[in-house]
């Protein structure tokens, strides 16, 4: 087995240390400005990556981060594991029973908040293919990706915004959370199909990709979830706890990820579904989830988001036209879909618009989706930068817009 040399070891460790500290410093700075932590983490990557440090001091940047190939591969492996763990935690945060229990308003908001941006994204992605720069030539997969990226929402950003505005327990808050969960669930299933289409086209057809995706999700969410739930008390009794939960849950997540990667789907999908199955167990407490979540979101998430700045030169690949197309498509599609759904569900104009803006926040999930699409060569770097900007702008917009639309009437909003 080959190992990293002395200098390669130092390079990897140094990179990790610098990335974590820079992510925290920039993240906290942007948090103070009432922006999501992820914005600061991304900017830390831009500062340390080829866009700034690499541009002005290429020698320093090369020495620290990409001095040799082996160190870069090791770092890339850690980043890949980070994405898997991030999706696992995102899955744990999904609440299947909340989705099942949703009332008429939440249901119509979920459905329209998904279908309208998905359809608009697909149509513009397919018929306006040239508007998005140089991307995959598989127009259907590309258009499906644009649709999916428009349909997804960022649950943690939304939850934080609702709490800050004291809207978490209102009817509007509940609808936003439920619809965001539903959109994420369907969004990641769709994305898995798209990646499967690209990866698996040489081995199996679209029909098999669909069958594998739906089959895996169904089996894991029913039988898998049942066995995980049943085995939790046994594991708790026989293993040190909650330490055992940390290793077992992440172990299962990696096994699920390996399995889906093996059958031609993306590894993240396996981890995401395992996350839902584990998070749904009645034996998994908030504290146990918190342990995993803190570990992943404070170590691996920053590494991942900082690394994005290393992969892409944001300054070189910024394209105003593509950014505007993506931004307008995202905002118009999501807000109109969610607004229509909420209106059909019996909410007022202002409440429906507020729900639209709430669901419009894309946050970290959108960025993960985009980086995976970039890695799969489904999109080019120009479009990637545009999607990242869209994710940041929509997340930053959500709070002030919800505040403007609902805050003066917060006392009168029906509580759930």
């Amino acid at each position, binding site marked *: 087995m080959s190992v990293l040399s002395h200098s390669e070891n130092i390079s990897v460790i140094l990179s990790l240390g610098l990335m974590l500290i820079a992510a925290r410093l920039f993240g906290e700075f942007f*948090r103070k400005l009432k922006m*999501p*932590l992820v914005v600061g983490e991304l900017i830390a990557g831009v500062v340390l990556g080829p866009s700034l440090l690499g541009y002005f001091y290429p020698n320093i940047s090369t020495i620290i981060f990409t001095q040799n190939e082996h160190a870069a591969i090791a770092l890339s492996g850690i980043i890949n594991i980070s994405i898997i763990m991030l999706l696992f935690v995102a899955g*744990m*945060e999904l*609440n*299947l*029973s*909340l989705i*099942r*229990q949703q*009332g008429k308003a939440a249901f119509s908001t979920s459905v329209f908040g998904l279908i309208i941006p998905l359809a608009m994204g697909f149509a513009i992605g397919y018929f306006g293919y040239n508007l998005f720069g140089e991307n995959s030539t598989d127009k259907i997969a590309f258009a499906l990706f644009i649709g999916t990226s428009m349909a997804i929402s960022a*649950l*943690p*950003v939304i*939850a*934080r915004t609702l*709490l800050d505005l004291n809207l*978490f*327990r209102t009817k509007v808050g509940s609808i936003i*959370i439920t619809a965001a969960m539903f959109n994420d669930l369907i969004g990641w299933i769709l994305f898995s199909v798209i990646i499967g289409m690209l990866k698996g086209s040489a081995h199996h057809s679209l029909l098999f990709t669909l069958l594998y995706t739906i089959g895996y999700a169904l089996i894991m*969410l*029913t039988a898998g979830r049942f066995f995980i739930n049943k085995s939790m008390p046994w594991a708790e009794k026989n293993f040190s706890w909650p330490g055992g939960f940390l290793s077992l849950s992440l172990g299962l997540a990696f096994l699920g990820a390996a399995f889906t990667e093996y059958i031609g789907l993306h590894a993240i999908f396996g981890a995401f579904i395992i996350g839902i199955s584990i*998070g*749904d167990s*009645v034996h998994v*407490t*908030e504290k146990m*989830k*918190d342990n995993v*979540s*803190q570990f992943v*979101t*404070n170590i691996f*998430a920053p590494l991942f988001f900082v690394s994005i700045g290393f992969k892409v030169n944001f300054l070189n690949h910024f394209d105003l036209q593509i950014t505007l197309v993506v931004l307008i498509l995202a905002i118009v599609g999501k807000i109109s879909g969610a607004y229509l759904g909420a209106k059909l569900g019996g909410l007022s104009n202002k409440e429906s618009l507020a729900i639209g803006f709430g669901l419009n926040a894309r946050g970290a999930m959108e960025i993960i989706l985009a980086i995976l699409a970039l890695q799969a060569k489904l999109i080019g770097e120009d479009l990637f930068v545009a999607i990242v900007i869209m994710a940041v702008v929509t997340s930053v917009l959500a709070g002030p817009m919800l505040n403007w639309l609902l805050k003066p009437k917060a006392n009168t909003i029906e509580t759930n």
Partner: protein
Amino acid sequence: MSNKELTFQKIAIAIAFSPRCEAMIAEAKLLQQTFHSQLVFVHVGKKSLQEEQYLKHLIHRFNLDGATTKIIWEVGDPVETILQICQEHKIDLLVAGALEKEGIIKYFFGGISRQLSRKAKCSMLMLTEPKIHPTGFKHLVVEGTDHPKTEYTIAKAVEIARAFGSKSIDIIQESDENKLALIRSEEFKEKEADDHKEALHKEEDEKLKEILRCTDCGELIIKTERIEGKPGYVISKFSRDKEADLLILNSPDKPMNLLDRVFPHDIEYALSDLPCNLLIIHSKDSE
């Protein structure tokens, strides 16, 4: 809330000619005596002379024959027929025997009691161990979740507890940890997250206090407890651990179907493995 709304004026008892039939009638007698209710015995199935005579004999034995008791025999689908009878006769409480736990196939496709509990438009009492010499309910555990139906459920629970001479009831506030988990994102400082959580709990506590302030509890001691976990599951577990003899829950917001059993939530956790007798309170105001 008027006194009229707080009583079970008409009680229907779903009768099957099983070994527990006699015990069910004994329980019905106790309920009738406690709430001064009219009783309607319902059996769905072909009428046979032997069964008819047996039922009449039991009713006579428990001194239930008279103007306040009615027997209905119908043929058809047991669940739909019983539900229809309940609606036609404006039944306030439907009583049926139920196994603590059903086999997996029966659970998913539905035993009669559980199907009734998911669809009934009136309150329903599921008796896991009906007794020939019933003692009533002494240890009641009641749902105290922040929900529009909870006020009615607590009022009803207090009345039942007082009617049976219970000394205290436990009201359980279940904190949906899935929602609370969202608070603990990387965006929050620990204290900030705790403050948000505390504020949410305080709001719920205030609402419960207000409900209790408006409820005539008499000498009854009300114990409230907050438990974090999945709603429905934690209260069932609490009832089992404390060996309660009656668990009182709000009725589901919408009819439950197979998907609710596959992806269980709330009352389905209790129905999947009944911890004790279960009373589902259907608030007519919330329809």
